[in-house]
C-alpha cells in the first residue's frame, strides 16, 4: 500500500495489504492448484498456466512492497518466515513446471505438483502468521486456503481443458473437482466454527458469518452442479458453471479474507483504574 498509514488510533481493517497482496493469494493458490491438476490429468502444457499464475501473483506483490529493488532480501530469513519460504519454493516450482512442459516428463510434472502443494501451504501459513489479524490467526485458515487453491486450480484446469479441446471431459477430472469443492466446503465450515474463539464479537465476526454462509451455499450449489456434470461430462454448461464457481468463489473468499475481514486485534486491558485508585472491570473495544 502506498502513502502514509492512517493514524490508527481507531482500529479497523489492516491498511497494509491491498488488492495486490490479495492477488498473490488468489493467483498463487489457483496457480498451484492448476499445477496439481496438470499432474493428476497428465496435461503437458497446463502446468505453464499454473506457473504463470504463480508468477503473476508474485509480480503483484512486487508492486506493493515499499522497496522493490531490494526484493531479493526476502530470501534472508527462511528460518522462521513463511514469506521467505514461499519465495524459496517459487523458483523451484517455475523450473520444474518449465522442465515438465519442455520434456513432457510425468516425473517433473509430479515434482512441480509437489512443489505447488508446498507453495500453497507456505502461502496459507504466511497468512496465518499475521497474528495481528484475528481472522488470519485462526489455524483453520491453513486447510481452508490449501483446499481453496486446489479447488480453484481444478476449476481452471477443467475450463482450460474445454478451451483447448472439446468439453467432453473424461469423468474423473469432474470427480476431482467435486472432491476438492467438498473439501473446501468442509474447511470453510470448520474455519467458521473456530472463529468465535479468535475474533472479538463485532463487525468482523458479523461480516465473516454472513459471507461464510453465502460462500458455503454457493459452493454447495457448485458441488450439486458438478455431480450432475460428472454424470454426463458432455453437458458443457454444467461443467463450465461448476468450474467457474470453483475458481470465482475461491477468489472471493481470499479477497475477503485478506482485505474485508482483516480487522485488527483490538487493544484490551483486563482492568481499569477508577478515580481514587479503585480497580474496575477491563476494557475491550468491539472488534
Amino acid at each position, binding site marked *: 500500500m502506498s502513502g*502514509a498509514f492512517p493514524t490508527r488510533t481507531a482500529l479497523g481493517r489492516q491498511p497494509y495489504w491491498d488488492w495486490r497482496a490479495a492477488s498473490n493469494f488468489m493467483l498463487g493458490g489457483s496457480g498451484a492448484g492448476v499445477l496439481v491438476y496438470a499432474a493428476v490429468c497428465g496435461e503437458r502444457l497446463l502446468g505453464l498456466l499454473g506457473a504463470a499464475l504463480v508468477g503473476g501473483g508474485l509480480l503483484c*506483490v512486487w508492486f506493493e512492497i515499499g*522497496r522493490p529493488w531490494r526484493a531479493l532480501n526476502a530470501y534472508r*530469513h527462511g528460518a*522462521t*518466515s513463511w514469506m521467505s519460504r514461499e519465495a524459496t519454493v517459487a523458483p523451484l516450482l517455475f523450473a520444474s513446471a518449465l522442465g515438465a512442459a519442455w520434456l513432457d516428463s510425468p516425473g517433473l510434472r509430479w515434482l512441480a505438483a509437489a512443489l505447488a502443494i508446498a507453495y500453497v501451504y507456505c502461502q496459507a501459513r504466511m497468512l496465518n*502468521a499475521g497474528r495481528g489479524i484475528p481472522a488470519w490467526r485462526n489455524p483453520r485458515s491453513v486447510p481452508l486456503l490449501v483446499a481453496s487453491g486446489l479447488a480453484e486450480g481444478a476449476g481452471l484446469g477443467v475450463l482450460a481443458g474445454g478451451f483447448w479441446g472439446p468439453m467432453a471431459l473424461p469423468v474423473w477430472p469432474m470427480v476431482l473437482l467435486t472432491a476438492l469443492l467438498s473439501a473446501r466446503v468442509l474447511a470453510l465450515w470448520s474455519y467458521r466454527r473456530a472463529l468465535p474463539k479468535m475474533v472479538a464479537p463485532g463487525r468482523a465476526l458479523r461480516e465473516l458469518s454472513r459471507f461464510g454462509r453465502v460462500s458455503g451455499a454457493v459452493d454447495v450449489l457448485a458441488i450439486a452442479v458438478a455431480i450432475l456434470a460428472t454424470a454426463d461430462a458432455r453437458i458443457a454448461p454444467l461443467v463450465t458453471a461448476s468450474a467457474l464457481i470453483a475458481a470465482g468463489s475461491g477468489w472471493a473468499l481470499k479477497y475477503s479474507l485478506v482485505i474485508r475481514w482483516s480487522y485488527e486485534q483490538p487493544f484490551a486491558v*483486563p*482492568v*481499569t483504574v477508577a478515580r481514587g485508585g479503585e480497580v474496575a472491570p477491563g476494557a475491550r473495544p468491539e472488534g
Partner: protein
Amino acid sequence: MTRYVMVVDLRRCIGCQTCTAACKVANGTPPGVQWRRVLDLETGSYPDVRRTFVPVSCMHCGNPPCLEACPTGATFKHEDGRVGIHYDLCIGCAYCATACPYHQRFRVTRQSFAYGSEPTPEEAHKFDPARLGVSSKCTFCSDRIDLASHSGRVPGVDPEVTPACVNSCIAGALHFGDRDDPASNVSRLLEQNRHFRMHEELGTDPGVYYLYAEGDRT
C-alpha cells in the same frame, strides 16, 4: 542478562499526550506515524462512566511475531530485549505490521510535513530518507540506550540515556529499566504493585507492564 522494559502506572497517567509529543520531536516521525500514543478508553455506562488512559508503543516483545514473520531479517532483537529494524535490509512488505497484535508498525513511502508542503526546520533536520518505504516503530530511543553502554550511565535513571517519553512524562507514570536487575527501579515497581501486560495470552512476552494497584499479585 539485561531485559529493558517499560513500566506504565495507569493510576498516574492523565492522558495529556506529552509523551506522544516528546516522541514525535525526539524521533522526527512524520504526520500519521505515532510510535507512541495514549489510548483514551471509555468504559461503563451513564452515570457510572470511567476513562482510562493507556499509553501504548512497541512492546519490545520477548517473543515478537513481527520478527518471526519478517522475511529479510531486517527486524532483529538486541541482547537486552529491544526489538529493532535494519532499515537498509527492510523491503517494506509490511508483513511485520500484520503480525504485530499491538498496531505498532508504520510504513510511509513519501515525505510529508505537518504544516503544508515545506518542512519545518525541525522536520528538515530530522528527516531520514532511509526510513521511507520501510517499516518503522518505537526503538525505545535506541540511540540513547546505546550511549549508556559507552558512558556507564544507567537507562531509566540518567535522563540522557532514558527514552524521551519517560523523561517527558509530567505525572511520573512512565518508567524504564532493566527487569533482570532485581535492584532496578522497574523491578522494584513490579514487585510492589499489581500489574498486567497487554494480550499476554498471545504468547508475545511483551516488554511493557501496566501497574494498576498496590500489592504483589500480578
